[in-house]
């Protein structure tokens, strides 16, 4: 103790004490602070490892062992986690069989597995990350912004997806899928990554705010009641013409037969 007490007025004591105090506080903080940040590293690498395992079993036969692409499938370097999340959670990937376009089917992976795959593919090269819910949530948009979303949708999307997102045909058996009932997140990811035939609408082309407006418009138009009666599949004049012939002309011919089947009664 003499050693310490004799030197407590030493010029370096203040500085040393400060360093010691900082060290203690730092050590205590490190012990008490939320572990997420520090635990993330090993956890993520675990996720990546798991993702790589899943990838080599399910994806590598077409996309190559390191996602470099083969003659059967495109490279995944730089597609980003958002693309993986969209393709796998909508069931488009893994592909059941080669075709013009990957069909939507029930997904085969759990959310954890999809996250692992996405984490692995994201390590292959920089690409768009999975959007968080604040990006695609439509809360707080004004009526005018939603109406503008409609105009943006008609300008950018309706050429393939139809006026109200009912979907449409593309050449050689490809098609733009229906957007009715598609979760906000998937619509957002599709715009961000441009899956299959779809062009990429990056944030530079279509800012995140506009994407939200488009999503809000789709939700509103699909939720609105059918003003004027049965909507006939939202297909426009084709189904209207069929109904006009089948019901209109059909029923009226029935009535004509009924009317002319009865003669006038002679008195």
């Amino acid at each position, binding site marked *: 103790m003499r050693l310490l007490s004799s030197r407590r007025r030493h010029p370096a004591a203040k500085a040393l004490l400060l360093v010691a105090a900082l060290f203690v506080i730092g050590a205590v903080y490190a012990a008490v602070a939320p572990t997420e940040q520090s635990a993330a590293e090993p956890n993520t690498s675990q996720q990546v490892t798991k993702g790589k395992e899943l990838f080599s079993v399910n994806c590598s036969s077409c996309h190559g062992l390191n996602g470099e692409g083969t003659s059967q499938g495109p490279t995944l370097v730089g597609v980003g986690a958002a693309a993986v999340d969209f393709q796998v959670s909508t069931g488009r990937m893994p592909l059941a069989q080669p075709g013009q376009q990957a069909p939507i089917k029930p997904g085969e992976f759990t959310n954890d597995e999809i996250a692992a795959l996405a984490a692995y593919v994201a390590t292959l090269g920089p690409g768009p990350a999975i959007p968080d819910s604040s990006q695609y949530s439509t809360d707080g948009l004004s009526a*005018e912004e939603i*109406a503008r979303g409609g105009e943006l949708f008609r300008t950018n999307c309706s050429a393939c997806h139809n*006026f109200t997102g009912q979907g449409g045909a593309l050449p*050689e058996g490809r098609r733009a899928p229906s957007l009715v009932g598609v979760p906000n997140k998937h619509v957002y990811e599709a715009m961000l990554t441009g899956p299959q035939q779809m062009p990429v609408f990056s944030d530079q082309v279509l800012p995140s705010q506009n994407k939200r407006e488009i999503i809000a418009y789709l939700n509103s138009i699909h939720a609105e009641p059918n003003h004027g*009666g049965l*909507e006939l599949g939202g297909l426009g*004049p084709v189904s209207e013409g069929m109904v*006009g012939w089948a019901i*209109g002309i059909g029923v009226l011919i029935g009535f004509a037969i009924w009317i*002319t089947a009865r003669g006038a009664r002679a008195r």
Partner: protein
Amino acid sequence: MAKPAKTATEAPQAAEQPDQQLGPVMKFFKGPAKWADDRTGVGGIMSGRIPNIFNLRKVFPDHWSFMLGEIALYSFVVLLLTGVFLTLWFKPSMGEIEYNGSYQLLRGLPMSEAYASTLNISFDVRGGLLIRQIHHWAALLFIASMLTHSMRIFFTGGFRKPREINWVIGATLLFLGMTEGFLGYSIPDDLLSGVGVRIIFGAVLSIPLVGTYLETWFLGGEYPGDILVPRMYMLHILLIPAVILALVAVHLVLIFYHKHTQFPGQGRTEKNVVGYPFFPVYTAKAGGFFFIVFGVIVLMAALIQINPIWVYGPYNPAEVSAGSQPDWYIGYLEGALRLMPNWEWHIGPTTWSWNIFIPAILGFVALPGAIGVYPFLEKWVSGDDLEHHVLDRPRNAPNRTAIGVAGITVYVVLMIGGANDIIATHFHISLNAITLTLRWGIFILPIITFMITKRICIGLQRAAYDRVLHGSESGVIHRSPAGGYSEPHTPITQGEAYTITQHHEYQPLTSGPQTDENGVARRGTAKERARRPFTRWYYGHNVPKPTAAEVEEARHHQGGHEVEGGHDDHAIESGEHSDEQVGAGHSD
């Protein structure tokens, strides 16, 4: 000229009724009726005393297919009534305004006044959406019923002399109806119809030499300009409806003048009409049918959405949506455009767009044109200058029936082509595969349906021939003492035999004598030689009617049939285990 023949079933004139027997209502109207009669002769018309084409005692035959034209007439009346309501609110202007109506999803967007006022009719005018939907459904039914009506007349030969002019008027009405419908579909200036208008002006541009001038003349400049909607509106509510109304009037007057055709049957000849008088029977039936047609249209309009322009959005030349189709009656043109290969000439600085001109312009004119011209072609082949008031049964004109079915096949193929994207998405077929199939189909399918139809008609003729000679099967199987089986046939009634055999039999032209009476080679006139293969095509395969001698012989044969026990002309093989019995019958 057709002379109105005497009607066979005109009601006997009612004897003058003494005043005392008039009911209170008749008594009340006696004065005004006399007043009107003195000035217009309306009483004579009503009672049929005046030989006038407006004779209200005119007889009309009863058949459901004679009501098809009335559907067209009544839906046109519905169109006029609802159209007047819509003009009260519609603003035919392309002036740009900001929408502030009650449809939330379009608020604040710039749009034309035409589109905004259509939104107002749909959402802010009381009953406006219902009236709009009635108007639109009535338009679809108007043209559908005109087409159905014309098919009935075509297949029964109702267009033959003296009704060719009325047939041509009908074809003109079809053409005008399609134009009128398309204009009405276009004036709300929504995104769907705007795409259609864009295509039409593309088609106008494709007309060789004058196309660009026509477009500039109609639009007052480049597409879309700012006078397109007002001009289409004028055509839609004024010019074309007026012409349609006038032609409908002439059409109806000519029906009264020619008198209605009738289906063949006992007691029906070229000189009479068997049916009920127009007044009171048909005034009641037709009047009632008007309310039925109106009611069905209103019911459809109330229950089924049509042309929801608010989901299409305002027209913007930069936007084209997938699944853009015109109303069904323009669908065949849409299909023709989609199926047409990309044929274009580039001569010097000019472009000749056959890829658009042939399907869109020629196609538009071809449908009413082909319909209008057919009676004259058939008349040239048949060389028949007689008046026809008794209709053909379609089987007795197999070639005409087959041509009609082939024409319908072409039309349907084009319609399917117009909806190829909807078919591709809903049946998971490649768009290109559909187009390729239909490109072949439009040439091959009509030939196939032509042959099938003609064979069916001739088969039916053969069945009729058998029926006249052998009667109908009684369904009773007799076993003779010798063990033979036979089925006696019941002779058909006189009336049915008449219906089956009344038609005129046209004969194919034969080359005739090769030399004339002076021994000079005779080849026939050029017309005769040109007609010859066509008459063979039209009439060469017909099954001849049984002759009187054949009928007589068959009747005799039938009479002795049941007495003759072991006669096994109609032996029936009864299947697996009775072969020996039948054999025994034969050996008898």
